[in-house]
């Protein structure tokens, strides 16, 4: 309750400031916690690309994979394409976006893919999920359901927005969505700022709902901004990625990979980051900022922008990849030297011990020039055991397959 009172006080504070003309405005939310030493830093989010890239324009030869793996451009023309959801038949893949406001449908016709836009003009419709013949689309301020879309490609959606009770703040509230083994829809609600006491209790949490929006439950709190989760193939527990806060320098606090071993855990935001770093702004003077905080399985690198996670369960890749987590790191902006821009594997025991991070797909970034050309975002597994990786920057999907290397 103390938390809540404090948040209300800050709100009242900013309102009175807004009325008193000659006093300075309070710091904007996104740069709250930005120290004087970084006040004039010119770091800013990387620009996205809103125009199409042809498959032939992708510098595939720059990509590096372990021996025996092959990469191809599997689909192109999906500007801003991020998370992918398979239809029940597996023949269609739905792909969400942010700025361009579209959801795509990719149809696999064997040797080639066709792409169409299912819906556009939405406010960052990054959340896509499929269950029981229906496609679910979640934008920052809207939830749509397309029943029987595989057979009725132009059927009108059902507007489900009211049922899901979406909060008003928009920052960090674009979605990643997935149905769990329990058939419930899992939906994250990010902290609406870089670092702050959230204005109300509806933020910085993971919820699940029945598919129709009833039965809302908060299953974990203290989550700043998760953009990817998957269920462990052995334990059925959720593992989720989470973005660390900005403006504390090049080295951290690092992004996280977390495990939800039971409902009700608190993952630290806004007081405690990474493996137990008290927040210098929000937790100032708080002695036990990391008390009762569930620490990550592993940190994932400074400002790495960890996105999609997929535990490998196919039978195409060599045995050592069974049950290993593939994680896409979209790459940093709040860091002078670029970091991430790759897909890594994380091998750990089922209870999250002995994590080992190994680069898997690299070459999107040129460390010497401190530049990048692609941003891997999400990973999905095809029936044949090959992996799809979406590149949000170029709007293409790569397919990674394995064939025993020739001697």
């Amino acid at each position, binding site marked *: 309750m103390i938390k809540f009172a404090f948040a209300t006080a800050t709100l009242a504070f900013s309102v009175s400031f807004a009325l008193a003309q000659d006093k300075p405005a309070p710091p*904007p939310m996104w740069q709250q916690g930005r120290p004087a030493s970084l006040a004039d830093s010119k770091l800013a989010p990387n620009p996205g690309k809103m125009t199409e890239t042809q498959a032939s324009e992708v510098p595939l030869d720059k990509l590096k994979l372990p021996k025996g793996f092959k990469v191809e451009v599997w689909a192109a023309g999906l500007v801003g394409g991020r998370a992918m959801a398979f239809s029940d038949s597996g023949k269609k893949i739905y792909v969400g976006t942010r700025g361009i406001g579209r959801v795509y449908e990719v149809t696999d016709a064997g040797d080639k893919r066709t792409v169409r836009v299912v819906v556009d003009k939405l406010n960052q419709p990054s959340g896509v999920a499929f269950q029981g013949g229906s496609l679910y689309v979640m934008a920052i301020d809207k939830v749509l359901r397309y029943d029987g879309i595989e057979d009725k490609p132009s059927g009108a959606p059902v507007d489900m927005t009211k049922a899901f009770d979406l909060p008003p703040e928009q920052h960090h509230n674009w979605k990643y969505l997935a149905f769990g083994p329990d058939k419930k829809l899992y939906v994250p609600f990010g902290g609406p700022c870089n670092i702050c006491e959230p204005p109300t209790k509806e933020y910085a949490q993971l919820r699940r709902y029945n598919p129709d929006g009833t039965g809302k439950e908060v299953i974990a709190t203290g989550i700043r901004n998760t953009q990817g989760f998957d269920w462990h193939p052995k334990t059925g527990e959720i593992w989720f990625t989470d973005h660390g806060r900005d403006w504390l320098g090049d080295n951290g606090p690092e992004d996280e990979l977390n495990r939800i071993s039971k409902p009700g855990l608190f993952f630290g935001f806004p007081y405690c980051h990474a493996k137990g770093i008290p927040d210098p702004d929000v937790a100032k003077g708080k002695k036990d900022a990391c008390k009762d905080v569930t620490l990550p399985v592993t940190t994932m690198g400074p400002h790495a922008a960890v996105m999609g996670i997929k535990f490998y369960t196919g039978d195409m890749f060599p045995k050592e990849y069974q049950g290993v987590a593939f994680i896409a790191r979209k790459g940093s902006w709040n860091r002078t030297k670029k970091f991430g821009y790759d897909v890594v594997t994380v091998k750990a025991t089922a209870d999250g011990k002995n994590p080992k991070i190994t680069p898997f797909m690299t070459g999107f970034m040129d460390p010497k020039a401190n530049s990048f050309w692609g941003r891997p975002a999400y990973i999905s597994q095809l029936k044949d055991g090959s992996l799809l990786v979406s590149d949000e920057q170029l709007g293409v999907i790569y397919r990674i397959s394995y064939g025993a290397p020739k001697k």
Partner: protein
Amino acid sequence: MTAGIPSIAAQPKIFTENYLVMTREGIRGNDAMQGLLKSVPDREIVALAVYFSKLTARKPDGAVDKTLFARGKQVAAQNRCATCHERDFRGREQMPRLAGQREDFLAEAMLAYRQYRRPGGDTLMAAALYGISEPDLKALAHYLSRVK
């Protein structure tokens, strides 16, 4: 030029690309513009963006209200607008030129961000205006439209 329509001369290429795509998609701007861009393919949008980025910037608006200008300058400095938009507000990459832009357009754009009526861009821009009063937004628009 008509009120509410921005000058896009000397805008960074990526910003104009994004702006034209968002307008074509009906996410931004007005119906007239959307109609014009309706069947313009991406490659032509890229070419247009390159062309506009090479034009000379519009001359700053006329009469300066000294008090308003000073206040705008102060608010821009306090909120570090220049870290993204560049010290002379000429913009870079996806961040637009603000210097010399039409005052009415700037004022409306900022209000629209604040009221979440300007989707498509990064939510950071709306967050950058968090807590700035409406009179201060007007001062910012006055200052930015006349800054040299």
